[in-house]
């Protein structure tokens, strides 16, 4: 073969074709065969997934006053791949993040080392894969900083040429009323999930759905908006509207606070309920805590005693045997009962009244709170019927109110009773109930014999204001006939009249009804203590058409005069003050002019 110019040109052409074919083959290999692998690597290097946190729903009262809401704050994160001075950053951030300076420096240095090792171990030409959390490591999830603080810290970083710490948007929960209604509202944990109260019960509805977006960024980390982004927007949580009226809650809290200052009880509970619907209008407990500063509170202060405390109700329970007796037509309000001048021997034991009483009508038994009278009514009813009515009134089962940790109380079936149980249960011993069960049972009397389910949530609304779910009143069962309930109500009016156990429960201008409770507390030796009482009063106003029922309960109050250590002297006046203000707030027209009554009494004298 002659090396003519034509041959040389042909060989050169083939050579070029061969070389370019290799290049083309390599390109096809990279672009087609290895497409997925390199596309993933590129995406990893240039794409970022950003979480879009959903705003948690608001909790409101019945008038849409905000009780719990999310507040935007900044959360500090560290990026180990660009950290330049762990010591300098620790100096700047230790205090605002509430962290130990040395610990923070070690943490930052650890992130920096992890990033360095990843960079050294990387494949040539391939971006380093950082261990999880190295580029977005949350420094202290508990330490939020405000928008202003974050801005000033970033400015200071720039001034000191520091880099590697950045802030992400997050939310913290704010309770504008502080400790008011704390047990009902509940609290969140560090993952922003409800762990108590309404926050827990309605966590799924309040939580919302977090969103996300993927976006491309250049090598400096700046977002390339032109390439667009993909993702899903965050969906805010629904708002929960309660049946609580904060004006009434404020009244109750104020009176309970004053009572706690005066009597220093171990615990105190007050509830206001609308008997016709079972709506809870106010619910307060002591001790209380500030949900904005949970860390400063004791664990035992966080229990909602209204649904978690099991107590012996004392004489308040007498409405059960009396109601049952009227309903079964075994007694009329005027039937007389021999109260044995304060002593009644039964099953080898003597039952006492707080003072000697002779013959009393059934109305009188309630008005004067005779234990012997109630025991005789119980004996006439019999074990089975008394137990059956106690269960019908809702004792021994959860009320199913939308509050977590509710206890059912304890009421033992008749086959476990001893001979004395029937005489003890009628005066509220040997039975454990919750304050909410007590007020719900009294609401049966106020509501013509109907047992309503206690409601604390009125409706759930979405972020556009549309009602997602509403909670209408639920009647559980009819316990008493209309007539029997009216008879009990009439009898309970006597409690507030002269000679009754709670004359101090009278609200000027109104005719009310109610029942005192003075329950002896049980000591560690399982015996009743003679100086420790659980004092309570549950009343309703106006007695003829009750618009609200109010419970006041104080456990072991410190009373100066031992003779005043009973429900009528301690709990009843508190009830009277709450009821007077509640009647005013609810615009209940007075049934008579108290001034005219006072004038008439003066003239008569």
């Amino acid at each position: 073969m002659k090396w003519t110019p034509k041959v040389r040109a042909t060989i050169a052409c083939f050579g070029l074709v061969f070389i370019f074919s290799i290049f083309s083959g390599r390109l096809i290999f990279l672009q087609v065969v290895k497409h997925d692998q390199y596309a993933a690597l590129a995406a990893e290097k240039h794409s970022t997934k950003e979480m879009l946190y959903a705003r948690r729903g608001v909790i409101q009262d019945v008038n849409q006053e905000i009780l719990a809401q999310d507040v935007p704050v900044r959360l500090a994160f560290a990026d180990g791949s660009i950290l330049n001075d762990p010591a300098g950053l620790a100096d700047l951030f230790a205090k605002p993040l509430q962290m130990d300076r040395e610990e923070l420096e070690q943490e930052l240095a650890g992130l920096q080392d992890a990033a360095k090792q990843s960079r050294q171990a990387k494949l040539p030409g391939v971006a380093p894969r950082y261990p999880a959390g190295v580029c977005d490591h949350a420094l202290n999830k508990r330490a939020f900083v405000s928008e202003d603080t974050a801005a000033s810290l970033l400015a200071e970083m720039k001034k000191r040429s520091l880099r590697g710490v950045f802030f992400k948007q997050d939310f913290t929960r704010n309770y504008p009323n502080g400790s008011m209604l704390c047990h009902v509202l509940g609290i969140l944990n560090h993952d922003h999930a409800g762990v108590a109260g309404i926050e827990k019960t309605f966590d799924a509805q309040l939580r919302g759905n977090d969103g996300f977006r993927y976006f491309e960024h250049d090598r400096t980390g700046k977002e390339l908006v032109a390439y667009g982004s993909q993702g899903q927007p965050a969906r805010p949580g629904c708002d929960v509207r309660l049946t609580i009226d904060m004006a009434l809650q404020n009244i109750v809290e104020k009176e309970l606070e004053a009572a706690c200052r005066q009597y220093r009880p171990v615990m105190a509970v007050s509830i206001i309920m609308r008997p016709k619907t079972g709506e809870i209008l106010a619910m307060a407990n002591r001790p209380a805590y500030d949900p904005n500063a949970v860390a400063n509170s004791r664990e035992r202060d966080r229990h909602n005693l209204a649904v978690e405390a099991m107590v012996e109700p004392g004489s308040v329970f007498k409405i059960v045997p009396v109601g049952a007796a009227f309903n079964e037509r075994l007694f009329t309000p005027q039937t007389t009962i021999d109260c044995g001048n304060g002593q009644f021997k039964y099953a080898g034991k003597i039952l006492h009244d707080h003072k000697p009483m002779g013959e009393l009508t059934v109305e009188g038994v309630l008005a004067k709170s005779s234990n012997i009278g109630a025991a005789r009514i119980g004996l006439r009813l019999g074990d089975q019927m008394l137990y059956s009515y106690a269960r019908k009134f809702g004792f021994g089962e959860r009320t199913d109110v939308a509050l977590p940790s509710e206890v059912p109380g304890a009421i033992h079936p008749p086959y476990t009773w001893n001979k004395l149980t029937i005489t003890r249960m009628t005066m509220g011993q040997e039975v454990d109930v919750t304050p909410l069960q007590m007020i719900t049972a009294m609401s049966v009397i106020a509501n013509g014999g109907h047992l309503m389910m206690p409601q604390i949530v009125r409706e759930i609304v979405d972020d556009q204001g549309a009602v997602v779910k509403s909670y209408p009143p639920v009647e559980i069962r009819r316990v008493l006939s209309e007539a029997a309930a009216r008879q009990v109500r009439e009898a309970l009016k006597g409690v507030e009249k002269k000679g009754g156990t709670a004359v101090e429960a009278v609200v000027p201008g109104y005719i009310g009804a109610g029942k005192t409770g003075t329950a002896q507390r049980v000591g560690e030796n399982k015996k009743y203590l003679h100086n420790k009482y659980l004092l309570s009063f549950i009343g309703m106003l106006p007695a003829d058409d009750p618009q609200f029922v109010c419970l006041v309960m104080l456990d072991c109050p410190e009373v100066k005069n031992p003779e005043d250590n009973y429900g009528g002297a301690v709990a009843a006046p508190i009830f009277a003050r709450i009821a007077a203000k509640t009647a005013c707030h609810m615009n209940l027209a007075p049934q008579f002019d108290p001034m005219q009554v006072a004038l008439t009494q003066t003239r008569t004298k």
Partner: protein
Amino acid sequence: MTKWVVAAFFLGVVGLSYVYLKNQLHTTGGQIKTLEKELSELTVENDLLRTKISTLSSQKVLQRRLDQDFIKMIPIAEERIVRIRTDARSEIRAVSNEGSEK
């Protein structure tokens, strides 16, 4: 020759337009990002102000201000309240309506 000049000019214009439009795309993207950031900051500011409003108008703060006499309020005395029966409301008519009926 003219054809080639026109074609080259056309291609040049197309190329420059491409570069210009791509530049505009990035500039607009940057502006969108700035506006989004501004919007986000305004939303945050709005949320903070809303929190402040709800805190300042909460029962707790209002009660404190009332106790401090910052807000002067006294309860209305019962004798100054005129109550209208619910069933009597239908009997009440505004005076202006009397004239308009004629």
